[in-house]
């Protein structure tokens, strides 16, 4: 018997295209979903496990910080903005404070700058540890979560020891860092310099952070299942990422050393020896790996900074009531999630005329519809998680 291959192929194509074709199903992932890090909603059009189209719906947490900033004074805004990306609250304050300082043309004392830098890097470690905690969880592994959070606690304890706040330090003041506060009934206005023992504790904590990085690497990096789930998944080319405004580790994982710590001069990073971590493929795995490596680099910077911290005042001379002169400035900083910037327009008042907040996660997840096209349902979670966003940072 001669088999007519064309005939067979034709029949099978009919079978595939007519009988096996099913109507699309709309699958809601979020807003109340275990892996959306808060209230993000993805409206996915799926066919079985395959995703055709994803529409992110955001705004469930929109708090209108840009409007709120217009009715607040500068110190009050500092207290607000560390709630934007609450995982690295401290780092949010820096670009805003620097923006105001640039308009006021204030020179910040060295020691204050070093303290800012140390705490910013600690915030970066805390933020990346949260990512390292939650990402394996999204792939089903629960244990790295606890290892990473265990060490993050140490870092947060240190931040709390200095600033009094774990998540929302509100420690920066225009002209320096928080100079004083009610110190106690017997010793009233005291200096808020680093508490005694901070350097040794920090050194010990950085040791622990480095060792948990090794542990996480053992647990996650060598794991064949993780590799199978992340290698080659959600590849993000540099040009596409840049056109969407993707920044931070997400862009560096695609191969460009785009690190604002090297580019901008908001803190004295040029005095420190650290590597800008990049990876080549831009897939989920690389994004995970870049963040792990950045923890190590951040720990390196912190250790260098505590070794080289100068003594001196914590605060430049500023008027008691802060009024920022007329002008406009955009200051951006390398936050753990990416480029965080404040466009500050002042009309000379106690508060800004307009404050545009450029948050990293907002641009980072705007790429979701592009990057999630045609993936499988489990990959939605793998890719979404690898972008490392915080809903407060998205919705502002």
């Amino acid at each position, binding site marked *: 018997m001669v088999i007519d291959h064309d005939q067979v192929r034709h029949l099978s194509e009919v079978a595939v295209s007519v009988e096996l074709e099913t109507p699309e199903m709309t699958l809601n992932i979020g807003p109340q979903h275990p892996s959306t890090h808060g209230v993000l909603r993805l409206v996915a059009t799926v066919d079985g496990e395959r995703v055709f189209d994803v529409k992110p719906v955001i705004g469930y947490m929109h708090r209108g910080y*840009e409007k709120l900033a217009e009715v607040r004074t500068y110190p009050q805004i500092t207290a607000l903005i560390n709630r934007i990306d609450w995982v690295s609250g401290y780092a949010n304050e820096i670009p805003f404070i620097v923006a105001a300082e640039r308009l006021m043309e204030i020179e910040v004392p060295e020691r204050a700058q070093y303290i800012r830098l140390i705490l910013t890097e600690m915030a970066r470690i805390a933020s990346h540890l949260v990512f390292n905690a939650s990402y394996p969880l999204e792939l089903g592994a629960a244990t790295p979560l606890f290892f990473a959070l265990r060490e993050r606690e140490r870092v947060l304890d240190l931040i709390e020891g200095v600033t009094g706040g774990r998540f929302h330090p509100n420690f920066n003041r225009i002209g320096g860092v928080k100079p004083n506060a009610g110190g106690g009934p017997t010793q009233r206005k005291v200096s808020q310099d680093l508490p005694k023992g901070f350097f040794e504790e920090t050194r010990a904590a950085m040791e622990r952070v480095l060792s948990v990085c090794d542990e996480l690497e053992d647990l996650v990096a060598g794991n064949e299942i993780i590799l199978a789930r992340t290698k080659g998944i959600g590849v993000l080319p540099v040009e596409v990422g840049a056109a969407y405004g993707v920044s931070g580790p997400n862009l560096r994982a695609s191969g460009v050393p785009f690190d604002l710590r090297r580019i901008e001069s908001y803190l004295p990073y040029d005095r420190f020896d650290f590597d800008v971590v990049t990876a080549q493929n831009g897939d989920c795995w690389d994004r995970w790996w870049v963040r792990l490596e950045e923890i190590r680099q951040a720990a390196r910077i912190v250790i260098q900074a505590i070794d080289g911290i100068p003594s001196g005042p914590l605060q430049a001379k500023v008027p008691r009531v802060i009024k920022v002169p007329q002008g406009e400035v955009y200051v951006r900083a390398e936050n753990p999630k990416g480029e965080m910037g404040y466009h500050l327009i002042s009309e000379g008042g106690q508060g800004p005329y307009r404050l545009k907040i450029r948050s990293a996660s907002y641009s980072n997840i705007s790429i979701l519809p592009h990057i999630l096209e045609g993936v499988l349902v489990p990959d939605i979670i793998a890719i979404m998680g690898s972008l490392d966003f915080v809903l407060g940072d998205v919705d502002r």
Partner: protein
Amino acid sequence: MTTSPSDVTELDAFAATIAEAVGGEARVAHGTAKVIVSAETWTEALATARDTFGLGYFSWLSAVDWTSDVAVGDPPAEGTSERIEVLCAVGDLDGRLVIFSTDLDHDEPRLASLVPLYPGANWHEREAAEMFGIVFEGHPQLEHLYLPEGFVGHPLRKSFPLLSREVKPWPGTVDVEDMRTPDEPSTENPEA
């Protein structure tokens, strides 16, 4: 160190070159380069920036409502012409960043969309549209981004009142006596 970037002059030159190429005006202050173009040449200017100057990184897009009619906050210091200023920051991956600016009519702001140039402008334009009432022509899906469907008004317009501040009296108004210290400003509530 934190007050000004080290390469101010280089930035000045860069901004001037771009301004010349797109037919706009360059202003550099405090390390921030701003190029002001007309609304008609908006997309052309950004296309030039992207293609000729390699500014392929889309940082952000937003707007400013310049008006003296303010419901909350302070009005501009010395009055202003009523307009909506659209700002768009684009850069390259070596670290240069230029903010493009254009002025739109205050009551009926319209501007060509940047989405064909920078896909990342999608969400930023949607946000600007709902917050300021700007119409971006050619935007694929100009729906609300943050606000619920059917929300009336444009919250970031200066004339939009802040409800939470309207419904609750300011606790600071209660005054026992004038305790103002010399360097204390007037008790004008900075927020009301």
